[in-house]
């Protein structure tokens, strides 16, 4: 498969570009931020995502979706990133659906219709500390009757406050650090014992601290295998990470574009600052970094779609490289904007904030760079 979008993907790309630019540009994000929206995103927009078919990209055709793959999800996510569009797309329609695809039919029947119609929102309850450490999950799920009882806390549950269901990774056996013993649960947020403490983040998205106090769930709530949730968790993580990489790439790419435009128009010392060679070299270097990141992201998605064994490695490369390139993009962006880059009036600062939140989501550059070393065996 050549490493560029095929004609169908290109068409999807064009419609995602048009849709996001038209319906959810940066001004849309500002609007929802400024009205201190408690969910941090527009439910009406989420409905429009559904109408466009975006929410069903990873849902099989026989189940009413488009039956497409991670490349296509990435096409949408890159535009979400470029426009800083607030949306539960990544947690719901990408990572969430990917996990449910590995679950039973009952779960899919329960949640897919709402996702396809743009009514249902999912969130991911993985992290337990301030850093992403899925191998250190310690939250307890003990057998109780026909099902399980969940006790513990989760952090950084993005969209957790507005989610209808959260996918919760917990231990049904073993202890933090053990490879086996994890189980993934689909927990309705209305269940007794679930409490959510919503916090607005630097990029104005909402994330919840969630607490589970003796929350009872049926055996049906298990996604994948009991004590062997590693496989489904990895699918969820790979989808979430490659998706986050694509969104990050959109942020970095968008920040670069507005910076290039800015330096083409701003004069100092009688010249356009874009004509200063020092800036030219720095932004040309940035261009190169963004191009490399784009190649990694697409490669990771293609490998995921192929079910390749090397997908894990490339997903970490993509998340790390997209994070590195985009951190550079927003840093250079603000600096090259100068004083106005520090103002809320200009968009570049919003890109910096969005990047910061995405860096932490599903493992940062350091985490994934370390995974690359570990996967290589050193």
């Amino acid at each position: 498969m050549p490493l560029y979008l095929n004609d169908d993907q290109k068409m999807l790309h064009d419609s995602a570009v048009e849709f996001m630019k038209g319906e959810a540009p940066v001004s849309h994000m500002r609007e929802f931020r400024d009205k201190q929206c408690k969910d941090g995103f527009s439910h009406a927009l989420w409905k429009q995502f559904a109408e466009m078919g975006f929410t069903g990209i990873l849902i099989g055709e026989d189940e009413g979706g488009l039956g497409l793959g991670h490349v296509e999800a990435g096409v949408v996510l890159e535009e979400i990133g470029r426009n800083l569009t607030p949306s539960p797309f990544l947690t719901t329609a990408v990572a969430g659906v990917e996990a449910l695809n590995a679950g039973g039919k009952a779960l899919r029947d329960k949640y897919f219709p709402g996702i396809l119609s743009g009514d249902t929102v999912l969130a991911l309850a993985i992290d337990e500390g301030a850093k992403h450490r899925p191998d250190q999950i310690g939250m307890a799920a003990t057998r109780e009757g026909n099902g399980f009882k969940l006790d513990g806390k989760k952090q950084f549950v993005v969209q957790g406050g507005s989610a209808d269901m959260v996918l919760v990774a917990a231990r049904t056996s073993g202890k933090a650090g053990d490879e086996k013993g994890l189980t993934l649960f689909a927990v309705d947020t209305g269940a007794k014992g679930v409490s959510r403490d919503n916090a607005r983040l630097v990029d104005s998205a909402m994330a919840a601290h969630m607490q589970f106090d003796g929350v009872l769930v049926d055996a049906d709530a298990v996604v994948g295998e009991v004590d062997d949730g590693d496989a489904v968790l990895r699918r969820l993580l790979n989808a979430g990470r490659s998706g986050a990489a694509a969104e990050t790439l959109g942020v970095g790419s968008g920040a670069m574009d507005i910076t290039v435009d800015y330096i083409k128009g701003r004069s100092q010392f009688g010249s356009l600052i874009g004509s200063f060679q020092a800036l030219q070299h720095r932004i040309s270097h940035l261009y190169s970094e963004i191009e490399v990141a784009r190649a990694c992201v697409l490669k990771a998605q293609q490998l995921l779609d192929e079910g390749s064994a090397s997908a894990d490695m490339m997903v970490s490369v993509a998340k790390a490289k997209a994070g590195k390139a985009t951190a550079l993009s927003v840093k250079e962006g603000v600096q090259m904007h100068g004083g106005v880059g520090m103002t809320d009036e200009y968009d570049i600062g919003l890109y910096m904030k969005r990047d910061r939140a995405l860096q932490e989501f599903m493992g940062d550059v350091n985490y994934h760079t370390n995974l690359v070393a570990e996967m290589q065996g050193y």
Partner: protein
Amino acid sequence: MSDLETFRAETAAWLEANCPPEMRQPMTSEDDAVWGGRNATFKPGQKEWLDIMAAKGWTVPDWPTEYGGGGLSRAEAKVLGQEMARLRCRSPLSSFGIWMLGPALLHFGTEAQKKYFLPQIARGEIRWCQGYSEPGSGSDLASLQTSAIDQGDHYLVNGQKIWTSYADQADWIFCLTRTDKNEKHKGITFLLFDMASEGVSTKPIKLISGASPFCETFFDDVKVPKTYGEDVSAIVYEENKGWDVAKYLLGHERSMISGQGGSAGSSLGEKFADKIGRDEMGRLDDPILRAKLADLDMELLAFRAMAERFGDTFKAGLCHPAQPNMMKYVGTELNKSRYELIMSSGGSAVLEWESDASNGGLTARDWLRTKANSIEGGTSEVMLNVISKQILRLPGA
């Protein structure tokens, strides 16, 4: 005991006896800084501490006593600073008058100007702001357009400034104006005037950190008298020589800012190791982050040595006159890197923007604030240009 040690002991005793207990608590927010001025509001202890220090001249310890200063030698002033830090006494007064205008007046001012303005500054009676940048002139400051037209006994000032720190709360402004349109650097005049003058208005600028410490400031036919009272000129130095004053102050500002990177008291890695956790070998349990923290800690210690060397050579007149530009460049870039790692180390907890747990997003807001370090007071690019030209003497720089 040497004279200096005697001074140290006496100073410590005096501070212990006179500094109000509230003023020995760590500051918890920007509000805890005292800026003085005509409309100053004070929290408990602040006014008392300001007045008692001002009476001793210790808001500006190394200024001459005749201008409201403490008349201390450089060594004594350093000891005072050390003792205040040791006893955790807060600074009694934050002031652009002290940091910026005062040094300019001490260097360029007439005796009448010094006698009139400096004591007001020392006592925190007048809060000053700085009118330098304009929307069209950022790094190229000398391209400023705000005009001051000679009308005999006064100037008529028209134009717009930007990045005026706390202009909406300031009493007076020291302002660069254009008095000759046919010259660039030689057509600028350094003017002092009252922000309450008719025709002055301000508009706060909202920053990405959420704060609004800066304003846009507009001058619409503002009449600035040429002298205040009998003989206090509104111009510092001479007409059309304001660029000399500005350059002096920029150098002064850069050497002040240049210490930023070194302000880090303790090792970042040490601070975060327990929070993030340690691996079986006792190392901070994020190997790549640990490597970056180690590199940063090394750089911070290196910069601390550089700051010491800069201070020593600067005082002894041994460093290159453009060296403050290098210090400003290195220090501000380092401080930005430092805050990037603080954010990485803090993880999702420091992403919170409004929560109590995050102290209202303090870390994230501080992080965003550092991005201005390499822009304000001369961008990193301008610093590198200056090094190229003045230190390395590269062609065409």
